[in-house]
């Protein structure tokens, strides 16, 4: 039993084996942060493979579920330790009038496995709910996905509401989705356009770096 074996179990999406190995490692005194660090590394590799479509969504989801189970298991030992803090807090949802979820769900998984705290607001989310939830969570980022051209204006509505409420400077607004592109992000004044899920953790991480 080793950290490497645990990494392999997570990569294979074997949740039961991963949690059993993590339990054993923790019982033998392996530092929880070391375990999490190793799993973050392997999930980064899994994410890269998925970005190149060397593996597909079901495999990545299973790996993510295995890692989440281990994180949950080790949560009591991670509490209060600085390295256990998230890289950023994000509220994420698909905008009002839009019921598509696949892109948003992949982004969520990618972010969570790279230790961002994500609150998933689901689909068909009212612009004001994005803001209320961001306030409630103490989020730094609002992520708004749109899969239909006629629902994209609701991304802009979030930004307009933030301005009207005097909160525009408080949140970074990130937009994405199949019909969304850089010029649209610029047109509506979004802080970031993420072209794909794979790049989201890196791009949002960069966005949150102190300037």
């Amino acid at each position, binding site marked *: 039993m080793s950290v490497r074996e645990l990494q392999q179990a997570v990569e294979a999406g074997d949740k039961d084996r991963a949690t059993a190995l993590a339990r054993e490692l923790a019982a033998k005194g392996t530092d929880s942060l070391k375990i999490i660090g190793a799993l973050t590394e392997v999930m980064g590799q899994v994410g890269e493979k998925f970005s190149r479509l060397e593996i*597909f*969504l*079901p495999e990545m989801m299973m790996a993510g579920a295995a890692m989440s189970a281990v994180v949950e298991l080790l949560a009591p030992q991670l509490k209060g330790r600085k390295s256990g803090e998230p890289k950023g807090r994000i509220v994420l949802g698909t905008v009002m*009038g839009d*019921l598509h979820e*696949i892109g948003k769900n992949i982004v969520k998984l990618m972010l969570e496995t790279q230790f961002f705290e994500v609150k998933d607001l689901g689909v068909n989310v009212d612009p004001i709910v994005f803001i209320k939830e961001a306030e409630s969570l103490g989020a730094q980022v609002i992520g708004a996905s749109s899969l239909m051209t*006629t629902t994209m*204006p609701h991304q802009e509505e979030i930004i307009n509401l933030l301005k009207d409420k005097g909160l525009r400077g408080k949140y970074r607004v990130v937009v994405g989705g*199949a019909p969304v592109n850089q010029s649209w992000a610029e047109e509506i004044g979004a802080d970031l356009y993420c072209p794909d899920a794979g790049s989201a953790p890196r791009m949002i991480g960069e966005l949150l770096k102190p300037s």
Partner: protein
Amino acid sequence: MSTPYRLWEVQDRSNTGPFCDENDFLPKNFSPKLKEVVKKYQIKYDPKNPVPSDDDLADRVWQAGWELFREVGLYNTDTHRIIKAGDQEIKEALYMHPGEYWVGAGKDAVLWRHRQVEDRRTPFCLFSPDCTCSEELHYSMCLAYLKEPLLDGFCAPILESSIGQRIASASPFEINGSTQHIYNLRLAAKQVGRPGTFLVAVGTAEHDSGQIAVSNNEWGVRTTDARIIGTLSEFKTANTLLNRVVHCAQYGCYAGNLTGAIYGGWCGGSEGVAVTTVAYSLNGLLNYGAIFNQHFPFHLNWGSNTTRELLWPIAVAGQALSRNSKLLYTSNGFSNAGPMTEMVFYETACHALVSTVSGWDLWEMASARNKHRNRATPLEARLGMEVGHAAARQGLTRGQANEIANRILAKYERQAADAPLGAEYQDCYHAATALPTQEHLDMYRRVKDDLAGMGIQFPY
């Protein structure tokens, strides 16, 4: 049969079908079952042959798709229940589909008929840019597409604004935009002398309210036209979509089921995309009462379907549907490159070729990954339809098409990830006359001549 299959019995299953937590539906129901049937029916992707000639493979994909649909069903995200159908119901619905429908009106009406694999009858040609469009260009684009000689039906671009106000789904602006959309469309059809052309409308309406607002035989979407009703990827629906099913049935217009199995997503690879596409056709028939299915399987990262990992499932699914049913189904191309690039012409040609010999009808072309405003023109669609007509008329076999497809793929495949964005409509068409620029026509001609040199015998 022109109304949905057992409308209220099916709708009732939204309330009485088996409960499932939405988070479990895809990972615990859909994905494992899909993997199981791919393995059970020994379906294996062959990247060397984008157009397989294996009838047995096509029939196994049909069986796998049937089993997937029967076992997984359609998940209603509003009621958290699964709408399911049994073997007898599937057989009955397939028997009841007539295999042909008259669509459109008057002299412009067209008999849309089921096609065979390697059919010498030309494909039904539905022109559609699929993209969004600036308000000031919408009418011109409608005119430009409706001028296309091979057009059997038309789906207009999506309006971004109306009276200068941005259209947002489910808002009053969407109803206003939907009204402008259909007025532009109907006027353009009248002006080019094709008033009864079969229209699939209106794409501007994402919400059911916008769709229902424009049902009108005098000025709006007629009962000889069609609506497309989406399925959420994968195998999910919602009441706003089912509202459209009921409306189409009771208004009396045609319904089509719009589906895009995602390569790299819950479908997995090419095998899963092929099986899921077949299963979606059964879903459209039984649960949406669709007279046709409009399929646009696409690549998760690129949003396109002109590379071989997508062409293979398109070919196989088309052959499966053609050999085992009388259904109608259009193959909707999504190119990587944008207008007025040689690449978009080659991509469209390849997509149309592969689809045509595999029994599909054509729906071309969502250029530039359907991601950019005003980035689609009738000219790339024209070339695709001309390839479809040529391939059918000269009786190209799947083997011959496979060889040509590999040659065309060599022209663009390596550029798929970094395809050129090309030009916007108004930069390669004269907006006032709705005609292509000479530069654009010259490029189209060059590619067409090159394709002719590869063995495609264009009639003109």
